């Protein structure tokens, strides 16, 4: 028996199908005689670069105890699983049974994003109000400029008329 750490990036669009899929994964692991010591469900994170045209991924990190002879089987199962964007199997000296920095970081960034979205919403509401105020003054400005333009055009017409008169003479 050896200690393994399995990191997976799962399709982020599974949503309600995620839990059944996770159970399916764990059944695959137990079929191959891998003992699931701990599963760290990191959650959906922004990827540093797109993988298979996905910009987000659901991270799962398993701490496993298993037989080296089954590694090839597990790798091939993960490779042909379309919901797994990427997988990494590492041998480790010691198994962890607590969440790593990643989970905390994901939660923090999620909170931040929510706060920002909330702020943006508030800002939008106020800016819409401000915009409607601005729009009133702008429409007035526009009417002024159109009037000016008309006057300018009239001047041109007069000038061309004078020129025409000169040509005729």
């Amino acid at each position, binding site marked *: 028996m050896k200690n393994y750490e399995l*990191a997976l*990036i799962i399709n982020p669009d599974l949503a309600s199908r995620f839990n059944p899929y996770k159970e399916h994964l764990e059944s695959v692991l137990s079929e191959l005689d891998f003992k699931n010591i701990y599963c760290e469900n990191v959650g959906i*994170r922004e*990827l*540093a*670069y*797109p*993988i298979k045209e996905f910009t987000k*991924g659901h*991270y799962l*990190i398993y701490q496993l105890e298993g037989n080296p002879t089954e590694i090839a089987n597990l790798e091939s199962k993960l490779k042909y699983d379309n919901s797994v964007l*990427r997988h*990494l199997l*590492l041998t480790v000296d010691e198994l962890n049974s607590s969440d*790593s*920095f*990643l989970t905390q*970081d994901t939660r923090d960034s999620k909170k931040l994003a929510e706060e920002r979205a909330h702020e943006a919403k508030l800002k939008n509401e106020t800016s819409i109000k401000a915009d409607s105020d601005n729009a009133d003054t702008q429409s007035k400005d526009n009417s002024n400029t159109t009037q000016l333009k008309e006057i300018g055009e009239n001047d041109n017409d007069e000038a061309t008329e004078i020129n025409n008169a000169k040509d005729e003479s």
Partner: protein
Amino acid sequence: MSTEIPIKFNYKDIKILKQFLTETGKIIPARVSGLSAQQQRKVTKAIKVARFLALIPYTDKQSRI
């Protein structure tokens, strides 16, 4: 410049690893970061694993596409 790093860390501690990346995502050489050879090897390995799992960018050019 010498930055203190914990004795034990891995690819998941991206906050630590990001200290050893330039703005463009390159690994800062030990000559600049002041890490010992052993520490630099560990940091480099962890960064490369984190890059594979899209926790850290390979380059800043990829995200702009």
